[in-house]
């Protein structure tokens, strides 16, 4: 009997999960202190994907930053394009003068990007929970959305679509019909995915009550986007501080109650439906007209004019070599990215380059919550929790 009660000396296991681990995609490292399978402590280490994005932006002209912004959250590249363009236009003082059509098209593209992002996130989350087939249903849905984005700007992932004062190109012919076809199949994919997972007992067990966070903690940690809304805070930049034409469309903001992974999953699932709704509404009232601002000092003139008129050619030359001249000042414009608030803080001292470019990435704030959310949980709980955070290394580490 005394032998049974004998104290066996044990000590916690220190485990380094990542940076090279199947679950820590986006390259992050969790330094775990484990008692058996229970997590006593989890230190999150980021920075493996730091590539000096902000410094790069400051070394090019205002326009040259767009390809870099694509590589922040590459799942929804257009949203970063738009966020940067909105901030720059605010500084230029042309924010209110944008042609209607450009604003509509930007909104449509933002929502398409949100679809692609949510499809990727939810699909990848199920993949890591072992449901490989459900993953591919959403990958196919995402492929179709990427087909749409490709038809508009020629690239699937790194769109480089938006310009200061306009867009790179107009929507192609027959875009509305293409959208209709894609959305019909997308809804079918959504139904299949929903059927496979939402009421799946195993999936619920894995997601329910894991990675939960209270509304206060979420706000204190700087959470935004689906993860904050899952905790019950109804904050969506599109509603709270409408930009583009979000005040002119009818859509709901899904809100959860518990802040656990299942709520985050449900919020994202519903946001997919809302994005489909927004795009359909916008395509219905898409105005005709130009897509670029009629101001050659902001947006390059059309190619034919550049080649045929000396004035346009000079503008084009000056814009390309010196960069468009942005008056001195500073600005922060928040937008609602797929994972939360994406905002650019830009400082100009005049001249053709940003003096300071700082991006507020949603993943950065969300990632600092991981340790808090998995403390006391099982090792396996890191997987859904980290997936629902949707850390994008490119965005978090910049």
């Amino acid at each position: 009997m005394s032998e049974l009660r004998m104290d066996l000396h044990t000590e916690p296991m220190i485990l380094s999960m990542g940076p090279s681990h199947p679950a820590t995609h986006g390259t992050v490292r969790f330094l775990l202190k484990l008692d058996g399978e229970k997590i006593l402590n989890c230190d999150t280490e980021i920075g493996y994907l730091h590539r000096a994005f902000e410094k790069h932006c400051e070394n090019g002209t205002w326009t040259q930053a767009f390809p870099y912004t694509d590589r922040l959250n590459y799942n929804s590249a257009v949203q970063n394009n738009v966020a940067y363009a909105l901030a720059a236009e605010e500084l230029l003082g042309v924010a209110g003068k944008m042609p209607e059509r450009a604003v509509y098209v930007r909104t449509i593209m933002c929502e398409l990007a949100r679809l692609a992002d949510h499809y990727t996130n939810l699909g990848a989350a199920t993949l890591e929970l072992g449901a490989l087939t459900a993953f591919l249903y959403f990958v196919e849905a995402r492929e179709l959305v990427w087909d749409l984005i490709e038809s508009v700007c020629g690239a699937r992932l790194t769109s480089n679509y938006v310009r200061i004062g306009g867009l790179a190109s107009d929507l192609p012919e027959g875009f509305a019909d293409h959208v209709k076809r894609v959305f019909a199949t997308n809804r079918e994919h959504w139904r299949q995915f929903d059927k496979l997972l939402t009421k799946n007992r195993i999936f619920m067990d894995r997601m329910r009550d894991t990675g939960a966070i209270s509304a206060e903690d979420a706000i204190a940690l700087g959470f935004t986007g689906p993860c904050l809304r899952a905790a019950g805070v109804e904050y969506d930049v599109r509603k709270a501080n409408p930009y583009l034409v979000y005040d002119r469309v009818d859509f709901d903001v899904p809100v959860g109650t518990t802040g656990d992974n299942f709520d985050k999953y449900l919020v994202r699932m519903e946001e997919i439906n809302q994005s489909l709704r927004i795009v359909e509404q916008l395509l219905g009232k898409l105005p005709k007209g130009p897509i670029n601002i009629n101001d050659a000092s902001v947006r390059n003139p059309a190619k034919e004019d550049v080649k045929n008129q000396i004035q346009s050619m000079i503008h084009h030359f000056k814009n390309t070599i010196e960069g468009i001249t942005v008056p001195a000042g500073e600005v922060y414009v928040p937008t609602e990215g797929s994972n939360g608030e994406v905002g650019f803080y830009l400082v100009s001292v005049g001249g053709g380059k940003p003096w300071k470019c700082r991006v507020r990435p949603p993943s950065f704030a969300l990632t600092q919550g991981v340790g808090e959310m998995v403390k006391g949980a099982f090792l396996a709980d890191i997987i859904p929790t980290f997936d629902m955070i949707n850390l994008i290394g490119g965005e978090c580490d910049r």
Partner: protein
Amino acid sequence: MADIFPGPDIFPAGMLPSLVEMMAKIIFIFTMNMGVFAPLLGWVERKQSALMQDRIGANRADILGFTVFGLLHTLTDAIKLLTKEDFIPEGADRPLHYLAPFIAVVPALIAFAVIPFGGQYDLWGHKTNLVIADLDVGVLFVFAVASISTYGSVIAGWASNNNWSLLGGVRVAAQMLSYEVAMGLALVGIFMVYGTLRLTDIGVAQENFLHWGIFLQPLGFILFITCALAENKRTPFDIPEAESELIAGYFTEYSGLKFAMFWMAEFLEMVTISGVLVALFFGGWQIPFVSGAALARLFGFLGPNLAQVAVMLVHVAVFWAKILLWIFILMLIRWTLPRFRYDQVMKLGWKIILPLSLINILVTGLVMLLVK
């Protein structure tokens, strides 16, 4: 002339045919498992998952332009695994690290010895029983041998000197122990109904379609297939090797042919499990509504001996077809469901399956008493 070789007769009457028969059966089962199923299931899995996921699947490897439905990938896999570096991590327990894959793969092969892949046939006056070892403890032998393969995984996890492997090994030990208890109890109902542990007798008892195990023991069947999935360590019970959590669990530190052996062990276990499922619940080699005697009459034109051979071939084919069907279903489950969490697997095993199998035994007993 008669007594050139005096002394005891080294071949007592009837022993030579028995020996030939035994060797033939062993070679047949070995070829089916190692030669056909182990390599082929990799292909089946690729193609089936492709089918489920609306993809094309493996179709690139070719010889002179012939891809043979991607079957050549099996060959390239084999070449790749044979030529890979056999890596043993620093600080690993070398003998145990070496031994573990063998312990994992051999029991999966041995377990098949007691599963009858056909009935009993009278071939040219020689009674042939299509099972390698017709043990009267049949199923218990399968359990006993299957639990040995657990050691392979546990030792692999321990010997690798890797925390992920160790966690995987710990998970294997806990999961296998829990589910072996439940699996054994889930089958008690079957033994009560058929009154025997001998798998050949259970096969014979299932000649009548309505006496198949799945009809007599529906709950036992569901419980057994759940436990069998857990024993097989495949999704949704693949927590010991959950690639998103533990990289590859207990065989993280294995490469080359030893990695392939774990891989093969998994496939062979799947074949064995399907074999047990078919033998216990799905009528073994029997064809629904067509008895062996009826089949023999159908082939009567071949003469009595050849008719028996024909019946035997049909039965063997039916048995393997049923196994294939079950493998297909097991893979369907594997590609559809997400995986459990460690504690949830334990909860399912001890708190749901174990009580249910006890209830199943009770209900089976009561029904048998009432029917009597």
